[in-house]
């Protein structure tokens, strides 16, 4: 943004000088400041909607939420100020702890998905037949609606007639009734998340790998570096920004997992084993009308996600927006 200043000023100064030349003895810069003011008005008008939207739909709700988290409130009646009591309750609320733990468990899908995606991207970087077809196939689950995918996998995880167990039966494994089994319900959801997100990470990795200069790899090969060494010393460091971007954005997204849980296990799963943080908040707020308490949980989750996002902004150099 610093770059805008110089040419813009010179341009306007030229305009002002031309005007000044026509109107004799007009003080230099008067015309330019009038032009400036008109431009400023237009500029403000052009950002007015997003700024207004920010105030109405983000800032006001956040302040509202902060206050509501200190109250007992059913969403309709009066808000009763109870200080920090919601936050104290939250510390001892086993269901909330369970839902937070479940959410952390779901994050396991991120390293698994990234490792698979990187391997796939490396494979796709070779000159093979049918690569575009493969790329499309791997990418289709990404664009599919989460509602339809959750419905599909709920049925696929059916203990007796589901695709997963029918497949396992072919190789002699007697699979559990995935979503009704407190041990297997979370891994089942992780597998589904990996399946759905794989194509996206693969695509970003592929783009990053293709940007690795071939000469670098060839030079390393001439120096006698093996395939694994070349991968460790060149490819992996070169794709690190993408890894970083994917890790952070996927933590933010997975921390908000909701639709899969609500559709596949409407009650939060056996022993509440699948309920995510957002699912628990949604249930408290919109099924049990504990709006005040639910808001305090939403604030805690929001702060955690805010911190992760902040880390992304601070560490990701590509993302640093230049201010003047």
């Amino acid at each position, binding site marked *: 943004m610093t770059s805008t200043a110089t040419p813009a000023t010179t341009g306007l100064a030229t305009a002002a000088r031309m005007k000044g030349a026509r109107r004799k003895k007009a003080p230099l810069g008067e015309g330019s400041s009038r032009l400036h003011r008109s431009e400023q008005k237009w500029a403000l008008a052009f950002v007015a909607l997003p700024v207004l939207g920010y105030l109405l739909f983000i800032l006001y709700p956040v302040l509202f939420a902060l206050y509501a988290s200190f109250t007992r409130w059913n969403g309709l009646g009066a808000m009763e100020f109870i200080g920090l009591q919601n936050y104290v309750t939250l510390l001892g609320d086993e269901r909330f702890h369970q839902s937070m733990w479940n959410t952390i468990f779901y994050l396991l899908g991120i390293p698994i998905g990234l490792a698979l995606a990187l391997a796939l991207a490396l494979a796709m970087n070779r000159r093979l037949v049918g690569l575009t077809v493969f790329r*499309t*196939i791997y990418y289709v689950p990404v664009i599919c609606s*989460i509602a339809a995918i959750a*419905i599909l996998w*709920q049925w696929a995880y059916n203990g007796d007639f589901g695709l997963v167990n029918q497949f396992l039966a072919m190789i002699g494994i007697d699979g559990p009734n995935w979503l009704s089994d407190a041990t297997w319900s979370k891994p089942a959801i992780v597998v589904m998340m990996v399946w759905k997100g794989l194509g996206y990470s693969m695509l970003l990795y592929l783009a990053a790998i293709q940007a690795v200069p071939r000469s670098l790899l060839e030079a390393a090969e001439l120096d006698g570096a093996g395939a694994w060494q070349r991968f460790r010393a060149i490819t992996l460091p070169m794709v690190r920004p993408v890894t970083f971007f994917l890790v952070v954005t996927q933590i933010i997204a997975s921390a908000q997992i909701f639709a899969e849980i609500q559709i596949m296990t409407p009650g939060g799963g056996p022993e509440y084993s699948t309920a995510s943080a957002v699912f628990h908040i949604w249930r408290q707020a919109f099924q049990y009308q504990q709006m005040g308490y639910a808001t305090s949980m939403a604030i805690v989750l929001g702060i955690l996600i805010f911190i992760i996002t902040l880390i992304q902004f601070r560490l990701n150099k590509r993302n640093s927006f230049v201010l003047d």
Partner: protein
Amino acid sequence: MSSTTTMDLSRTARTRITDTVVWIVLASGAIFMLAPLLWMLSTSLKTQLEVFALPPVWIPEVPQWDTYVRMWENSYILSGFANSAIVTFSVTILGTLTCSLAAFSIAKMRLPYRNAIFIGLLTGIMIPFPTLMIPQFVIFARIGWVDTLLPLIVPAVFGNIIVIFFLRQYLESVPNSLIEAAKIDGASFWQIFWRMIFPIIRPAVAAQFILWFMAVWNDYLAPILYLRTPERQTLQVVIANMNVQYATQRDYPLIMGASVVALLPIVVVFLIFQRQIIESIALTGSKG
């Protein structure tokens, strides 16, 4: 001389073997990726008996195309389509315009308080929707918008901060001299935007439009908060409700058929615009 040729030969042979192995791995992976979707399609064409047959029936003997006829009766799929289309098109068309104007203002105009506005909007990205959903719901409940499509449309028309930042970044590469020249020619800022800036940023706008379109079309959390009456629900909520309703009747062909129909438009859009979508996603990722 001869030793290098044999080395080269063995190298090509080795590469060929590795390529074959890699291809087989990729192909088996592709089968895993496709299998659930194909199974959804196959289930939708089975009879109730075939669905619960053991050993499993992979391909229905007589495809029950009737599923795709009867799903429209007594269901809200049609209104779901209409509602999803209304929300998605109004959000993306109006929202893209808002975002392009804002990006132009932030990137290329003398915007007062630019840093304050910029940092303010930046904090907006960091606050997740679940934190905002309860207050937003209460606000819209107070003005009587619950059970209408308005809470899904109106906030988005005010712009999407991520889209604004992406377009702003794209605009950085547009030379200022172009805009200065237009200003000297006496063009109004609206004319500069509409005749000059918008055509320049059109590829970036198209990329963001497609991504935003898919995100809104597939959205689930906000629609289930606001939409109660079945005929006012978006497609995703409609099929989720059908899932609950027909699972008790064990009518899995119908559930799977409805899901296929819900997926189809987006999959078709994807297959048509595949190259643009994939490019824009790779671009968004590398730009952060």
